[in-house]
């Protein structure tokens, strides 16, 4: 397993979470872009179409589309299928409000672009209050990212 590394950024919503990364380079629509009751992306041309972000550390550029963004992710939180943490680059009003109502740790303003450094399946520990993200790359990281990669027994949480 590759060595754990650290990214630094700004707290949007405080708290700690650790889990598996789900990374997309596509911005995400809330209303019309996700099914908030299953936590699944539904947008027609999205690279995560059909994939669930429930309980994942969702790493994405930011929010796009309808201003129903926050209410859809709000419903996802109440349905128990919101992301466990959100790391994103672009702050907008809908992204900021969406992060707030999800109540999960969220960060932005990274010194290094998380889209460049984190791959789907990596184990990620987010401490939003401290502004720190610890990333333990999954094995075989030279492989292209596999969005639906199942939980592997070999994966262990990064030491905290």
């Amino acid at each position, binding site marked *: 397993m590759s060595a754990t590394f650290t990214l630094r950024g700004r707290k949007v919503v405080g708290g700690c979470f650790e889990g598996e990364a789900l990374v997309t380079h596509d911005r995400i629509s809330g209303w019309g872009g996700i099914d908030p009751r299953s936590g699944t992306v539904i947008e027609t041309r999205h690279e995560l179409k059909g994939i669930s972000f429930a309980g994942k550390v969702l790493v994405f550029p*930011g929010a*796009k589309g309808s*201003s129903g963004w926050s209410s859809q992710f*709000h419903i996802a939180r109440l349905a128990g299928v919101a992301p466990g943490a959100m790391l994103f680059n*672009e702050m907008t009003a809908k992204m900021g*409000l969406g992060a*707030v109502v999800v109540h999960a740790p969220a960060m932005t303003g990274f010194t290094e672009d998380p889209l460049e450094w984190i791959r789907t399946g990596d184990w990620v520990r987010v401490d939003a209050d401290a502004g720190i993200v610890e990333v333990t790359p999954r094995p075989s990281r030279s492989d292209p990212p596999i969005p639906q990669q199942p939980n592997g027994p070999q994966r262990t949480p990064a030491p905290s």
Partner: protein
Amino acid sequence: MRLRDDEKAMLAGDQGPAVQKAMDLLVRYGEALDAQCLVDTRNVAGTIGGATPFLRQYAEREGGMDAVFSEFNLDSAEVVRIPKVKVSSSHLQQGIDPRHAKRQGIGEDVVRIYETGQAYSSGLGVQPLNTCTPYQVGNVPVKGEHCAWMESSAVIYINSVLGARTNAEGRESTGAAMLTGKIPYWGLHLDENRRGTHLIQLDIDVSTTADWGLLGYWVGEQVQDCIPVIEGVSHQPNLARLKHFGAAAASSGGVEMYHLVGVTPEARTREQAFGASRPSAILRFGEAERCWAYEQVNVTAHDAQVDFVMLGCPHYSLEQIWEVCQLLEGQRLSANTQLWIFTAASIKQLADVAGYTRIIEQAGGHVMTDTCSAIGKVLPKGTRVAAVDSAKQAHYLPAIMGIQAWFGTTAECIQAAIDGRWKGVLI
């Protein structure tokens, strides 16, 4: 974030628990944005309805509409009693048209919930515009006015065409703004964030409403949430064209503000549109880009038989309903095709008086209000293939409803409703 004395008092609970929750949310939200302070607003457009299935169940389980407002408009799990709104507040679109509920496949129980919600909303003093286009029915903010609006197509319209100032707010932040008259002073409320970022030069004439929709769809994809400045506008666009342009750009990307040089109020010249900054990119919109947009908005469509023609995304203006009447008068819709046109209730009242509704109904179509197919998830039973004249609707409807959608001009859509078949082409 710096709070003024009145804001500190609200946060301390001096105006009751609902206002306290509202201010608590605005502080959390403002700090998430890294805003310096809040700004006063007296113009809020949001949604507080509870007619969608999830919210209906929530209201039943958690104790009615105050519970829905507490959770979904204030982000408060604790149910607080909601007082009357403090500032002028417009309601955006709803989940059903109560007057066409049966046709939309909506049960009487849901109509009753809708009516309960409507009474609740009016009881709070929220104005029942019930449209995604408040600016078409009397809520027309002026240049420089600080607003707190949601609905991406309305946000981009009032920022760009009217010169008002709002970010794309959400259900929770507009709920908090209704009770406090405050919103984070951030983003498009500040002069320096309203200047253009990308220059778009038009190499072809963009004149029809459909063409403005295609341009918007391409621009949104290109600039995402940045601020495009479009130069080379050869035909003065009207309200409908700018409405469709903005709705499309806000759907394919996250555009909340644009400038049309020589047309929109903060862009008398290219220099004014960009201010002190220089364009980060210069892009050209020509025939190839127009074709790309056309293919993208038609990407889900392959069956020529059209079951359903949906117009009114965003809600149609009276002028657009009149245009449909000119295409439809004396014609008869295909027996296999439904035509639903969505607008605001107050526009429909005028369409009734003007005789437009009668012309559409005599042809076999229906004029519906308050909602649309995507927001209300309402389609004629058995719809597989829809036709729309809105790039925004072509973007969303297939994803939300799992159907195919053709995009074309209004005339092509009306012809599809008459023939029952799609014959649209990009000319």
